[in-house]
């Protein structure tokens, strides 16, 4: 029987939902399981209702599902707001001394969480860890694994000891007190896997790719990237500048890129709004820069702590005038690492801005991945000026070439003067209003897209190459759609998935080909208007036959997609 088990931890901000959720994910990752976990929280520091879902499986998982097997309810809302996710087999762990009137019957397992925390672990701050211990008892899991994780998490000392005592108290109480059915999740030795968020994968990708400079302004859900890079900057020879605003952030990154280092910034949609001016500067000065846009629902402030894929058409068209850019959208947390590496290579090889589109769901969810094989990371800095080939005095920063790529020199590292301008410029980089030079420079810049187009990956097809119904997705929805395809195919439907993680330059031929054979083609997007459908129409001339859209700020589940596809017809 395949294991597919779902925990949910719910409570208010400040009750330790995040830490119990993370620890649960970690102990199962340690026990040889595949884990996917997502966080749902409100834009506040205390109170409200937050929850953390942890899916534990024997096979690769990348999406959350609706049904909850064990709910740790740290407050009443966690029970009342999640009735729909509870099934006849769900078990709810709660503190009957705090949440009255629920009763301790059937699947509602009441235990004195707070009292145990005070008596056994020295304070009610440990309540969440008591519940964590209880949850592990309900699946007969090895408590030793948690103990080791607690010591690593808190460091040896009093805090770890109190947490270990709390977990043990909860574990022992539940082991003897819980009379329902125990569903065993035994630790099985397996390959060691990393448990990390999308933002952590991007940060590791940036470090592996040799990013030396980051400038950014904090914005949910991108902030943890700048925090991670700042924390590792000394060790890895990087600098992270926390700027006064997003305008400064992108301008500084471009300045660093011009000076000769790999540079990036990270933000969310409305921060990217402020960066749009700088985007065009990278375009005309042909300066490499990597921009992470971790999308959240807009417009304006929108839903700050939730997810959406609403920036696709924006990043595609942002800024005035014509210039080349690349847009990548990682499909999974593992993919986020590799996409980031590619973004740095393309930015330098083609000397243009590369936008990596993620979203809150990808940025803040956790997944288990095999350690990245760093021997596969290649560094391509593109064409560089060499004094052996050219006299410094002859150097032209914007030399017109067949590929559109002019070798880069870096200021101060040779006698070549590196001149560039936001105004239209001549080959040397000085401003010009000459019609011929203007035309030559625009064409030269746009020619870079031909080379880039050769490198863009073809969309992934999951399932059979040809199917009656093709589901089309992009970015972080990959795993949810893939799982929906599995469910529908088990029911006998002919369904496959066409998924894009490299969106611009658009792989038009491959998408056109796939659309040509399917009876039904549905885009599945976390936005209100079907932004990928519009891009497909613009690039292939073809309409999709339907759009499955979700823009409530919550991620897709496989079940939601299955239901929607059934409704549309397949």
């Amino acid at each position, binding site marked *: 029987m395949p294991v597919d088990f779902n925990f949910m931890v719910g409570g208010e901000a400040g009750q330790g939902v995040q830490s119990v959720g993370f620890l649960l994910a970690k102990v199962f990752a340690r026990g040889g399981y595949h884990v996917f976990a997502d966080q749902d929280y409100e834009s506040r520091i205390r109170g409200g209702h937050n929850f953390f879902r942890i899916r534990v499986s024997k096979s690769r998982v990348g999406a959350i599902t609706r049904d909850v097997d064990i709910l740790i309810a740290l407050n009443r809302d966690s029970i009342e707001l999640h009735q729909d996710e509870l099934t006849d087999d769900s078990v709810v762990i709660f503190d009957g001394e705090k949440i009255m009137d629920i009763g301790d019957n059937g699947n509602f397992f009441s235990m004195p969480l707070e009292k145990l925390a005070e008596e056994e672990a020295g304070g009610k701050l440990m309540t969440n860890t008591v519940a964590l211990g209880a949850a592990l008892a309900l699946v007969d899991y090895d408590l030793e694994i948690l103990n080791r994780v607690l010591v690593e998490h808190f460091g040896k000392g009093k805090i770890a000891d109190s947490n270990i005592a709390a977990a043990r108290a909860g574990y022992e109480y539940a082991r003897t007190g819980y009379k329902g059915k125990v569903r065993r999740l035994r630790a099985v030795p397996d390959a060691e896997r*990393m448990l990390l968020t999308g933002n952590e994968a991007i940060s590791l990708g940036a470090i592996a790719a040799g990013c030396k400079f980051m400038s950014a302004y904090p914005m949910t859900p991108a902030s943890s990237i700048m925090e991670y890079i700042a924390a590792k900057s000394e060790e890895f020879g990087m600098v992270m500048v926390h700027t006064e605003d997003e305008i400064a952030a992108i301008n500084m990154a471009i*300045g*660093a890129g011009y*000076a000769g280092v790999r540079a990036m910034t990270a933000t969310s949609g409305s921060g990217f709004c402020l960066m749009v001016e700088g985007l065009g500067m990278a375009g005309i000065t042909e300066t490499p820069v990597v921009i992470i846009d971790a999308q959240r629902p807009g417009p304006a402030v929108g839903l700050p702590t939730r997810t959406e894929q609403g920036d696709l058409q924006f990043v595609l068209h942002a800024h005035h005038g014509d210039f080349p850019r690349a847009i990548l959208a990682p499909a999974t947390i593992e993919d986020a690492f590799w996409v980031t590496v590619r973004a740095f290579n393309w930015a330098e090889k083609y000397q243009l801005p590369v936008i990596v589109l993620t979203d809150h769901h990808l940025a803040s969810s956790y997944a288990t991945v095999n*350690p990245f094989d760093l021997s596969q990371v290649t560094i391509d800095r593109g064409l560089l000026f060499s004094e052996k080939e050219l006299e410094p005095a002859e150097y032209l920063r914007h030399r017109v070439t067949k590929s559109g790529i002019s070798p880069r020199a870096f*200021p101060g*590292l040779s006698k070549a003067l590196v001149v560039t301008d936001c105004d239209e410029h001549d080959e040397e980089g000085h401003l010009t209003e000459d019609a011929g030079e203007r035309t030559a420079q625009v064409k030269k810049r746009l020619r870079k897209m031909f080379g880039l187009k050769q490198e863009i990956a073809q969309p992934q097809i999951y399932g059979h190459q040809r199917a009656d119904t093709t589901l089309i997705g992009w970015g972080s929805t990959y795993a949810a759609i893939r799982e929906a395809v599995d469910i529908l195919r088990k029911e006998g439907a002919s369904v496959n998935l066409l998924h894009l993680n490299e969106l611009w330059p658009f792989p038009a031929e491959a998408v056109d080909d796939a659309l040509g054979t399917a009876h039904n083609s549905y885009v599945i997007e976390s936005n209100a208007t079907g932004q990928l459908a519009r891009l497909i129409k613009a690039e292939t001339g073809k309409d999709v036959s339907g759009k499955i859209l979700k823009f409530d700020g919550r991620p897709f589940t496989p079940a939601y997609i299955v239901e929607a596809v059934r409704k549309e017809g397949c």
Partner: protein
Amino acid sequence: MVTLSDYAGLQPAWCPGCGNFGILKALNKALVELEIEPHQLLLVSGIGQSGKLPHYSRGNVFNSLHGRPVSPAIGAKVANPELVVIAVSGDGDGYGEGGNHFIHAARRNHNITYLVHNNQVYGLTKGQASPTSDAGFVTKTTPYGAANPVNPISLAIVSGASFVARGFAGDAEHLAGLIKKGIAHKGFSLIDILQPCVSFNHKNTFQWYRERVYKLDDTRGYTPGDKKAALEKALEWGEKIPIGVIYEEDLPVYEDQLPTLRRGSLVTQKIDPKRAEELFAEFL
């Protein structure tokens, strides 16, 4: 040996008699006297008549967006602290569009020199009021007179700038001295430069300034290290306008605070993807 011919750039397209010529002359003189070679220099400008200055001198040039020269200048300086980085701006560019970057660059004390061509009017867009236009200054966009001006000197001082000076484009010799001091100063150096606009500002003319400016260096007892006295000097405007170093202090420099840069500049650090493996353990 560095000579003025090393700094002979393109033919300027400024109006005849423009105050910018004096600034260009002073900058080139300062660079020659400091024996800085053009390839060691990075000039970052914004948009406006001031933005063209780097093209008329020589060096590495990044002519950036309107109001933004300070930000790419900082990015380049952090990436390669060996570069002599000079950001060039104007009153509209630097004190209007780029006001926020100015305040924060001063506060963080980046080791760059910031030259602001302050002609109290918009030249490139033809004669509108600027953030430093005198109160009551009538232009097409301010038919009832401009509002109170920004005082860049006091703003720089209260924002934490460690070197604040004012020069006059009509005295290139004196201005060159200030630019030399600004470049030599460790930290953020603002040199606000009174720059008569012969086409659009018929109030603040060469003559108007000549009648009013006086050199602080000649003023007995004035030391630029006293913040209160500096603020008092900063507020002087009208009948008498002080030029010279108004405030100077040794403060921790942003780039010097970064442990990474103590090991050398970012542009010379190696890329080694395999080292990322050291980080894997925290996720296992």
